[in-house]
């Protein structure tokens, strides 16, 4: 394949050079959530904590509204966003449901169907 090939995959936010640059502060903040002190500091004052990492307005809104798709669009990497999800006590099925607009049970049912190879 060509060195700089890009391809669009609908419903997929490839974490590439553009996203890595755009989402740097957002991901850096989420990376900090590996530490309990950082999670406590965020919980005490989310806005101030976002400012510490120079989040853009769009990123701050996405964080405030727990809008995973918006975070991805603003350069979030799912691996770091997962740490924010952890802080919110959400698991991967909760996150899947939020992103696909399904209920958590509907999302889990889809996983079971996909796992069986029904689709």
């Amino acid at each position: 394949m060509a060195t700089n090939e890009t391809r669009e995959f609908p419903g997929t936010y490839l974490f590439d050079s553009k996203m890595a640059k755009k989402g740097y502060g957002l991901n850096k903040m989420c990376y900090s959530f590996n530490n309990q002190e950082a999670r406590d500091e965020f919980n005490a004052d989310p806005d101030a904590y976002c400012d510490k990492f120079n989040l853009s307005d769009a990123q701050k809104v996405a964080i405030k509204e727990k809008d995973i798709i918006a975070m991805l669009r603003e350069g979030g990497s799912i691996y770091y966003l997962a740490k924010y999800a952890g802080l919110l006590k959400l698991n991967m099925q909760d996150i899947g449901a939020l992103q696909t607009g399904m209920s958590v049970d509907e999302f889990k049912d889809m996983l079971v169907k996909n796992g069986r190879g029904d689709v």
Partner: protein
Amino acid sequence: MANIIGGITTSHIPAIANAMANGLEETPYWKPFFDGYPPVRDWLNEKKPDVIILFYNDHGLEFFIDKKPTFAIGVADEYHNADEGWGIPTIPPVTGESELSWHIANSLVEDGFDMTICQEMKVDHGLTVPLNLMWPGYNYGHVKVIPVCINCEQHPMPQPKRTFVLGQAIGRAVASFEEDLNVVVFGTGGMSHQLDGERAGIINRKFDIECLDKLVTDPEDLTKYSNLDLVEIAGAQGVELNMLLAMRGTLIGQVKELHRNYHAPISNTGSGLMLLEHTMPEK
């Protein structure tokens, strides 16, 4: 001479750590997954490998995107796990094997693989979950582990054809190590899954099973896929197939499949457990 006696593919998702910490192995949801493991554990306990070379990816514990190694190898005597932010238990230290690690690192760079060489690295669930799966109750302290970390988080990431030849180079490096050591190689992660976006939740059972088949009989055929092909076919995190391919690359002699258990879903992914016995090529 050091001798690779086998290769194992296994899932490494954090949900497994939670299931084990909460004693859920026998629940209907988890049983079909955990039931696959006893034969592999028995084989490991019988063969008693001295060293495990473990391919995994770091999901944001040791490495951030400030400096993101494409390939990293640990050369430490000990590795530590730490809080990953979502509440899976932090587990006891992992024993390292610095001499063989350095030998592999030297040999790889000589061979054209420009590794990041780490004397300290925190190891995340990608490495710790498989160890605890094979030696439950955190009873892995006796086995020496060499972590090899592959970037699967940020594009550009190494292509399947590259990770496969990295594996081959590690296989050759092990074969050229003087000391008599028995080595087993773990390829962890995968299989098809996607965590992000509106497309989250895809699992491609047919492709996963095809990959497991090919890993036994014709691994080179899998190197025809690019990472973007894998994203399309197996989801954004389907690129973790790279760790399985790297493992298979190290098996430069004859392989025989001893055990397999494919089960999907666990959490958001398909799980492919496979045990391959390996006979080193004649010198």
